[in-house]
């Protein structure tokens, strides 16, 4: 059986997120592009979810290792900052996997405008169904959770706390 050369896109597409290992970087919308240049070099583009995301270095190392192991010798993993990552880029599959892992997926990101960002003095308007029992009756405990991209919520029906990927 002759070996079919692997597609770098599918190799990179299997690499998982270091913080949420049930999701791939592609599911999260962090993997922006994989292409093969004319000289055979593979160029991978990733974007950070938040400016301070400490996992970028691990993602880079994981992508390099996966592609090297698949036989690609010349791999360049590049950071792209623009356009900025938005939670809207999490795929339908990514949302399903988040919910299955007990993490509520984000709703639609706020509409972005060029002008001043309006002050939000009331409680955050976000809602999220409980990923454990499905109840819509949940409350936010904190806008900031165990990682930069998550808030902490609690279900008023089953009383369980859960995490929620913030809309950004």
């Amino acid at each position: 059986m002759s070996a079919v050369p692997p597609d770098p896109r599918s190799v990179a597409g299997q690499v998982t997120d270091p913080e949420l290992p049930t999701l791939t970087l592609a599911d999260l919308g962090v993997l922006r592009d994989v292409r093969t240049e004319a000289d055979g070099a593979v160029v991978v583009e990733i974007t950070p979810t938040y400016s301070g995301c400490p996992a970028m270095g691990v993602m880079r190392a994981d992508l390099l290792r996966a592609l090297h192991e698949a036989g690609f010798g010349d791999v360049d993993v590049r950071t792209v900052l623009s356009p900025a990552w938005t939670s809207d880029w999490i795929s339908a599959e990514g949302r399903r996997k988040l919910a299955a892992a007990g993490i509520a997926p984000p709703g639609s990101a706020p509409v972005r405008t060029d002008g001043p960002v309006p002050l939000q003095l009331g409680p955050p308007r976000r809602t999220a169904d409980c990923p454990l029992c499905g109840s819509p009756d949940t409350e936010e405990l904190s806008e900031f959770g165990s990682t930069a991209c998550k808030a902490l919520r609690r279900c008023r029906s089953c009383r369980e706390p859960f995490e929620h990927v913030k809309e950004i």
Partner: protein
Amino acid sequence: MVHEETVYDALANAHGEAGRWAFGTGFDDPLAGVDTTVPGGIDPADLGTYCLMLGDDALVLAQRLTEWVTRAPELEEEVAIGNIALDLLGQARLLLARAGSVGVLGRSRERAGATIPDEDALAYFRDPDEFHSTALVAAPDTDFAQAVVRLLAAATVRLAVFSRLRSSRDPVLAAIAAKGVHELAYHRDHAARWVVRLGDGTEESHRRTRSAVDAVWPLLAELFTPTDVETRLAAAGVAVDPAGVRDEVRDVLGQVLGRAALPVPAWPVGTPPRGRRGQHGPELAELLGTLQGLARQHPAATW
């Protein structure tokens, strides 16, 4: 096929046998693969200095906020403050790396040695008078009320500046700003809700928050006077003239204080931008002593 047990092993192995410099972020260049070419007509020295102004504000405030971890009034608030500090540290890394990419390293490079990344050389190996941060971010917190009032003020100013910077002629700065705007909106609104909760809370929380406002307001005086660098870069479409954000900042802060049942102090009379020019009080030297001490004592340490 070798798979590391933890992400930390993967990270350590990514740096090979030589080990990593012990005190840096160690992850990698936050601008890896980003086109850092400076567009025509922009003075790289001015651009680098401006990035230090914005980056130093973020680095210094991140350090101050981190002092609340283990001391915040609630566990959730520690997590929140840690997250906000991490966002700011991320902005600082990008901005200091941008300054380094245009060659603005000052004397930090000779002190740091050749192997330490630009962002770390700038963070750990500059003296206080080489920092361009404002007094607002360096002031120590006397209590939690002051921490949230200062965060409110600093995040409001920074959000107003970053909103405008999204259209900067420097595409790297514009991208950093566009990313930061969403983070800063979270920071500002979080701080604002705490100010309302405390100001419109008990007699004691109201008294303390009012004192905090009185302590923080004078620190706004230098923020809206542009330096020559900002004036030149604003004219070139690269930077934001801070004088142009003053009314927006005053309006937002007034809204929050109004909801917090707190009197709005008289707006301070503008003063020269001392912090931006490297003129600081002892608070910054104290803070940098904590931040930099170990790295400077063991500049070549690896692990």
